[in-house]
């Protein structure tokens, strides 16, 4: 990252926040209104990527009831799945799940029903933690939430839906 490229490297979180800010995307906030959400700051996105603010901007468009973990943002704990811990698998799996105890307790303390995270490592790890520590939460990425909450202009929708309605 950041070498003398001709191009700029952006994280998709920053990109999504930009679209929302510029009004290029519209979200229906009511979709997740019943859910309490929390956000897992991936190490490489928040602490080492500086995208924590952008993520919270997106959440502002997406969630009614948002609770931060303690601590959060740049000071959030690692989920335990980073640094190649997920793909190492094998005998490392047990260590990984144990080290996720901190994250599991953080999530439990928020009382959230949805844990949002834009990182695949966090995503897989927290899903595993969900089972291991019986958190009873849904783990979602921004993309998954967008799929449900994006407002699609009528003219872009598929035609057969209109036919069905007629």
């Amino acid at each position, binding site marked *: 990252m*950041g*070498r003398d490229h001709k191009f700029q490297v952006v994280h998709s979180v920053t990109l999504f926040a930009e679209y929302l800010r510029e009004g290029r995307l519209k979200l229906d906030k009511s979709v997740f209104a019943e859910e309490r959400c929390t956000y897992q700051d991936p190490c490489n996105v*928040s*602490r*080492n*990527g*500086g995208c924590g603010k952008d993520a919270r901007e997106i959440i502002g468009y997406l969630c009614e009831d948002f609770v931060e973990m303690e601590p959060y943002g*740049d*000071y959030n704990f690692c989920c335990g799945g980073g640094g190649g811990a997920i793909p190492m698998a094998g005998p490392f799996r047990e260590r990984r799940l144990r080290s996720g105890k901190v994250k599991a307790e953080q999530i439990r303390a928020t009382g959230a029903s949805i844990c949002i995270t834009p990182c695949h490592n966090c995503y897989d790890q927290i899903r595993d933690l969900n089972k291991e520590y019986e958190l009873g939460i849904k783990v979602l990425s921004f993309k998954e939430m967008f799929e449900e909450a994006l407002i699609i202009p009528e003219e872009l929708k598929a035609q057969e839906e209109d036919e069905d309605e007629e």
Partner: protein
Amino acid sequence: MSLYELLRGPLLWLAFGVFIGGMVVRIILFFTLSTKKDKPIYRFFSWKWLWLSIFHWIVPLNQTAKKNPITTTVGFLFHICLLVTPLFLLAHGVLWYESWDISWWSLPESTADYMTLIIIGCGIFLALRRIFLPYVRVVTTAADYLLLGVTLAPFVTGYLAYHQYFDYNTVLLLHMFFGELMLVVIPFTKLSHFLMFFFSRAVTGMEFGRRRAPSW
């Protein structure tokens, strides 16, 4: 030549020589090696993040200070007194004056006396931490105790000499010896952090800074 003159003259020169020369060599080595092997430092060099990083840690404006108020207080008191007391001690001022015909501010003697006690007290606290906290004990080596001892020795003997406990002349000579010993070991041990702190903070500050994340 009397032992006093030896410690006051040639050995003091030697101590300052090793101390200053050693630190200069360390810095030169750091720069020569880093230009070859630590390219990221120079690629992402930024005065802004360098100073921000140093600033937030040279004053207690960081998460660690918030989380560990007692250790932070002790640490800051220890370090401030450690630097200020020897530099502004009246008796040391007299020595500078006698040798170089220069003089500057000095602390009231009673203040310096209290500061010495603070250093010794903080030193004992740090030693107790090493002994009783498992997570400090696990990284503690014999060298850590030894260096804490070497750091405290000039202050303990200085305190004894000022109050003229025990045999004044012996205590004073010991005080001079330990002071010089401390100077000599600084460049070769972790005590070099008094200077390398700034390099380390600068490097990390810039590394986090280029990702727009604070390192404090």
